[in-house]
């Protein structure tokens, strides 16, 4: 088992110029890396005998737009864990909000494929080299990236209302026929 400072030191020996920032005092210590080096560093972290990060616990996208404390950007966060040595580290990569792109780590940890698809689906992050970069949770022809902070929900999807519109709600409240639901008529009486 290695503590965060030791892991950071091993990284610094090899990739000093790729490390942009690090915080080992945080609840979960993290290292911010240059995005283009993520695949290379992942292989190093997995294959180094003393590090042996054999699992990718979580891969998340975070959109920092309009945050009170942080500059605008998209961040990709990798939570790594070593089952063999029982230590963990968090990797981060900062991308621009316009056309964010980062190399895939699918070849390092197989699970990354689906996680990256999810991040692509929700944030529009392009993972270069991912073998199957399709939407995963939303339909293939969905427009927009739902977890972006400035996302606006479309009114309809293939002619179906996505959410009750203001007009729809008003009509329902007035007891007008908006569907086959008898609940609407009861709403008026009460």
């Amino acid at each position, binding site marked *: 088992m290695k503590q965060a400072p030791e892991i950071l030191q091993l990284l610094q020996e090899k990739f000093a110029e790729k490390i942009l920032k690090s915080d080992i005092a*945080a*609840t*979960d210590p993290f290292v911010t890396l240059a995005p283009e080096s993520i695949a290379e560093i992942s292989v190093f972290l997995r294959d180094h005998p003393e590090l042996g990060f*054999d*699992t*990718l*616990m*979580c891969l*998340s996208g*975070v*959109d920092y737009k309009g*945050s*009170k*404390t*942080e500059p605008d950007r998209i961040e990709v*966060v990798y*939570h790594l864990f070593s*089952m063999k040595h*029982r230590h963990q580290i*968090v990797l981060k990569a900062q991308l621009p909000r316009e056309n964010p792109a980062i190399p895939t780590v699918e070849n390092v*940890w*197989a*699970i990354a*494929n*689906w996680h990256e698809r*999810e991040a692509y689906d*929700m944030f529009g992050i392009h993972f270069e080299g991912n073998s199957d970069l399709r*939407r*995963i*949770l*939303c*339909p293939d022809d969905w427009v927009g990236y*739902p*977890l972006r902070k400035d996302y606006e929900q479309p009114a309809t999807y293939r002619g179906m209302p996505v959410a009750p519109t203001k007009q729809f709600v008003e009509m329902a409240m007035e007891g007008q026929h908006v569907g086959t639901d008898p609940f609407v008529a009861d709403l008026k009486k009460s």
Partner: protein
Amino acid sequence: MQIEAYAGEEMILNMGPQHPSTHGVLRLELETDGEIVRRVVPHIGYLHRCFEKHAENVDYPGVIPYTDRMDYVASMNNSLGYALAVEKLMKLEVNARVQTLRVIMAELNRIASHLLSIGTYAMDIGSFTPFLHCFREREKILDLFEWTCGARLLYNYNWVGGVSHDIPEGFVEKTREFLRQFAPVIPEMDELLSYNKIFVERTARVGVITEEMALSYNITGPNLRGSGVRWDLRKDAPYSGYETYDFIVPVGIGKFGPLGSCWDRYYVRVREMEESIKLIRQALDRLPEGDVQEKVPKKVKPPKGEVYGRTETPRGELGYYIVSDGGNNPYRVKVKSPCFTALSILPEIAKGEMVADIIALIGSIDIVMGELDR
């Protein structure tokens, strides 16, 4: 290979989304060659409600009912993970009674969840009787929950800093009585199902996950332990006082076929129920006095920062990545669902299996679509 000799035209077969054995709305696109499956493409998202977006628009305690609705057969475990993650972010320590109650509820729910998993799995394979036995027992656990917090499935029980209700008078005795009565049901289940020849034939050589594959795909929980890896967060990264309990971590034994088969995963779940009984008994014995809402903050407002908290749910490792900007609402909540990772391995292990075995495979990895799609 012999399979090559029969190579003919391929047919695309859609399994789901409304197929009873897919445990919810999951669609599998099967490329079949006669009875043999060449390729599987899972299509998920039918139950996607964008939990993560909702979480950004409500305050911290408001997220808890949403977590209940992810894995709706193990809500206690899901909300526990969230509460622990927020507490870690706020550096909040709960008292001993809350910790013990959380263990009792989490383990009761683990039994209920495994009963559902085993029962429906048996039914997928073609045996109806175990399903009824399992549901009879599960019902008693749900009654205990209803008695405690008023809800049978979606409890909103684990709050940040405490739990919503203390247990009612007589709960300890009732739970002991249930455990006394339930303990002999597990050997019964073994006789009825685990060593049943037809069941073993259907499951023991199907869908083998090796240890290496399991790690690369981040398979967790009973699915990982079925492959012989003794890894359980309750033991290896304890939370909520699990380190003070005496229990073992059952792993697959490969008794009837290669290690890591469907039978092994099923078998781990049966053995885990026995361990849960042990855990609940110990927790009931030691249940300390205290106020269960002593540490519940008036306003849950964690400092700026971020945390990754993970707990062992009946389905595996559930992770919450929470980013706080110091405001009232979480800035970002990401859920790492154990079902999500478990299903991602399906295309790899389903290759070359028979169509009927796909049913056995899906049941054995025990997915709940509510959590998978979030």
